């Protein structure tokens, strides 16, 4: 085993994490290499130092705090949840707000329905009559008529490609 290969395996050798063949190769190298012997000793010191570190004690009350945290209802609704909880404490305010909301939605709906009923009374023929009059006096103002006129002409809007016509 080369010096480089052996030196890169010193940690694994120290931890007993090498296979038999690799372990023997490292051992053979160590017998002849003072540099690797020194490195191995240093690595072992680091391992020993870290291993001797005392286990850190969790601060008193940490787990009790965590249990308390877990017992607290989770605010699934976020800020809305807080608002809802507040609502239960003040029913009168909620009732007033609900009434206002109903009125705000219901009034335009009711008004729209009345308008539609009135329009139905006037009758559909008013629209037809107006349309016929307009078409007769000024046919180019009638969009439907205009569409019919230019539908088969090769008219293109600005910026759009004109459809090929002349076989080019």
């Amino acid at each position: 085993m080369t010096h480089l290969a052996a030196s890169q395996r010193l940690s694994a050798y120290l931890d007993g994490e090498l296979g038999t063949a690799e372990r023997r190769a490292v051992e053979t190298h160590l017998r002849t290499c003072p540099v690797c012997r020194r490195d191995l000793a240093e690595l072992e010191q680091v391992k020993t130092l870290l291993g001797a570190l005392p286990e850190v004690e969790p601060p008193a009350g940490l787990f009790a705090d965590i249990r308390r945290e877990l017992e607290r209802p989770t605010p699934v609704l976020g800020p809305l949840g807080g608002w809802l909880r507040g609502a239960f404490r003040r029913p009168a305010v909620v009732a007033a707000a609900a009434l206002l909301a109903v009125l705000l939605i219901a009034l335009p709906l009711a008004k729209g329905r009345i308008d539609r009923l009135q329009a139905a009374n006037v009758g559909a023929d008013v629209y037809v009559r107006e349309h016929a009059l307009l078409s007769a006096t000024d046919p180019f103002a009638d969009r439907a008529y205009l569409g019919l006129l230019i539908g088969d002409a090769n008219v293109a809007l600005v910026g759009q490609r004109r459809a090929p016509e002349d076989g080019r």
Partner: protein
Amino acid sequence: MLQYQPHEIEAFEALVERYGRRIYALAYRMAGNDADAKDLTQEALIRVYRALRRIDPAANLESWLYRIVTNLHIDLLRRRPKARVESLDAPLLTAKGDEVTREVEDPGPHPEEVVVGAQLDADIQRALLALSFDLRVVVVLSDVEGRSYEEIAEMVRIPVGTVKSRLHRARRILQAHLAHRMPRRDDP
């Protein structure tokens, strides 16, 4: 809101009892300060609690817990790239609002003497924090927590070969940082 059966609450309590201290210890070695370690432990246990019904009893629970802690720590580092620095001589505030000063152990008159005490602990912790996250997690799991390469590979989700090389690099860097703390060697 989660509604657990009494036996499920009991299972969670047993889990906290069994792994809570280890989780805190790992979090402390990774984060290097009590405040972050507490946050990490709390967040990890809350995640465990929420996932209680989904835990596979056949799975390696401990390695899963460790993975939660390390992942949370990665999140923490991402959110706050600068490490929290606690001044040793700044006064601390107690819960009542009084100021107290830290008692920091004196290094002592004989630096050659290996004293496994607060100062050495602080030196090692500082050296650990100087490592990149990738190297730190491997060396902490191996040398502080005593995990095998195989276990670390599973916890960190990296190949065993990567554990091997990262651990080696981490130890070499730590050795350079802690050389002044090493006992005098007498071997040839």
